[in-house]
């Protein structure tokens, strides 16, 4: 069905199609609309899930973990400070190999108190063992949520998946949305290590260095295996529903002399900047990184790279810029922009490209 919806409502609609057994969540701006809408679906009977209105985000993730350990499909959503409050449990979900799906509406970190878009919140969780995908449209928020369950629950993965959407810029914008009947696209969940009273086992017991080390290596092996599962899932999604996604979305990159790399809605705005630069005769392209974990192999050789980070690691640099340096061997022009919802237009992005200073870092609006 073709309709119009906000990013938040799109995530809720996808959750309705996938029918998790348990949704445990605590509202926080700008995520609130997701959990309100899901609660409404449950109340109206449109969604047959157990909705647990918990007293904190730590409890939200703990409830999802408890449900997931029994083999139940579980979902939650949060934002920034809520994500940090559940940080301990975020690690526990991944270490427990529980295929929980969470939507994180990217929001800045206080203080100063700020409810607008920034990626530092989810990037601070990048080493927890969760898969992370960043979306840029209402449709993509919906599609990625559908796919997240299939990827997380795949037996080659069994790791949780975090869908990230920009606070307000995407969570509250209205765009067209085509909802689908997923049919058997997401098969029933079958957790091989679910609690079974007929076969008692220890969960989260004290684990010595040797076994602990093997568990960690096993997580990394699954993270690497998830690359193929993501590809296969996105291919199957394209076959069934006609929309194709990948680890990156590349726009006019083939012959580009300079490529703008970014995540989320800035990646779409960058496409408009690229069109403008092309009209001026500059061979520019835009690459929007969708999957941050697992981090894909990117070919950015023999061209200039401009990276826009809507995040920062103090004393180190933009997380995306540093990741590209480490993984792709490029020396980018690193632009720090859009923190706390700072307005960044396509004109601004075009000027980053025109005035690029390879190897340097530039804080948009505050440094020269």
């Amino acid at each position, binding site marked *: 069905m073709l309709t119009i919806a906000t990013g938040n409502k799109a995530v809720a609609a996808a959750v309705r199609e996938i029918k998790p057994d348990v949704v445990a969540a605590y509202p926080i701006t700008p995520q609130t609309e997701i959990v309100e809408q899901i609660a409404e679906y449950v109340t109206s009977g449109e969604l047959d899930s157990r909705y647990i209105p918990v007293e904190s985000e730590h409890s939200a993730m703990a409830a999802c973990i408890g449900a997931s350990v029994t083999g139940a499909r579980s979902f939650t959503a949060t934002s920034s400070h809520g994500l940090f409050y559940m940080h301990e449990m975020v690690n526990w979900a991944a270490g427990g190999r529980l295929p929980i799906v969470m939507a994180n509406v990217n929001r800045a970190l206080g203080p100063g108190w700020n409810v607008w878009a920034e990626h530092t919140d989810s990037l601070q969780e990048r080493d927890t063992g969760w898969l992370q995908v960043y979306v840029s449209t209402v449709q993509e928020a919906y599609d990625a949520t559908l796919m997240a369950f299939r990827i997380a629950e795949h037996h080659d993965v069994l790791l949780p998946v975090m869908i990230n959407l920009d606070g307000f810029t995407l969570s509250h*914008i*209205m765009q*067209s949305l085509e909802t689908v009947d997923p049919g058997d696209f997401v098969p029933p969940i079958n957790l091989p290590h679910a609690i079974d009273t007929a076969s008692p086992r220890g969960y989260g017991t004290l684990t010595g260095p040797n076994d602990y080390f093997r568990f960690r290596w096993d997580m990394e092996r699954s993270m690497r295996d998830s690359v193929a599962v993501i590809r296969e899932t996105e291919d199957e999604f394209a076959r069934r529903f006609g929309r194709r996604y990948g680890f990156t979305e590349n726009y006019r990159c083939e012959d580009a002399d300079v490529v703008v790399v970014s995540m989320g809605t800035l990646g779409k705005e960058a496409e408009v900047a690229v069109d403008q630069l092309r009209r001026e005769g500059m061979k520019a392209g835009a690459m929007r990184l969708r999957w941050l974990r697992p981090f894909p192999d990117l070919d950015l050789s023999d061209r200039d790279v401009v990276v826009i980070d809507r995040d920062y690691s103090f004393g180190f640099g933009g997380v995306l810029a540093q990741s590209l340096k480490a993984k792709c061997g490029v020396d980018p022009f690193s632009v720090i922009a859009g923190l706390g919802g700072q307005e960044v*237009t396509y004109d601004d992005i075009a000027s980053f490209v025109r005035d690029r200073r390879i190897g340097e870092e530039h804080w948009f609006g505050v440094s020269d």
Partner: protein
Amino acid sequence: MYEIRIHSRGGQGGVTAARLLALAAFRDGKHATACPFYGAERRGAPVVSFVRIDDHPIRVYSQIRSPDLVVVLDSSVMETVDVLQGLKEDGTVLINATHGTDVGGYRTYSIDLTGIALRENLVVAGSPILNTPVLGALAKMGIVSVESVTSAISEMFSDERNVKAARAAFQELVI
């Protein structure tokens, strides 16, 4: 791309008006996005929302700098906000007012949306609701079709008075 900026006060329905307008444009077969600018808004504070309408998918997320049309749901915001900022030279203004107002030499349309809302008893928490009547005025201006306005309002509101108010505004606005 046709870009619209809506000025109102928190609680008057400016954000919903933007969503309704995008939905109506979408029902017309266009691409549309509606995005409110969320500040530290509270009831009564000036708020802004944006609508973009185009024949192609819209990839711009940043705020509208030079709108084609400015809609003012509460003319008192003009005392503190420069509603004409960035308005294109050939741009248009639609104002909720009881009498014709000339604004900075721009093509300006005036309509008493508050009067229509009060007449239809569209009042929530003491404030007349302007978001559905304004859609009728926008249809009269040719921004969206009146059929799509009716269907968009019916999709979002079950109360028939909303459609009636939009129809009344459509009839009242003098083009």
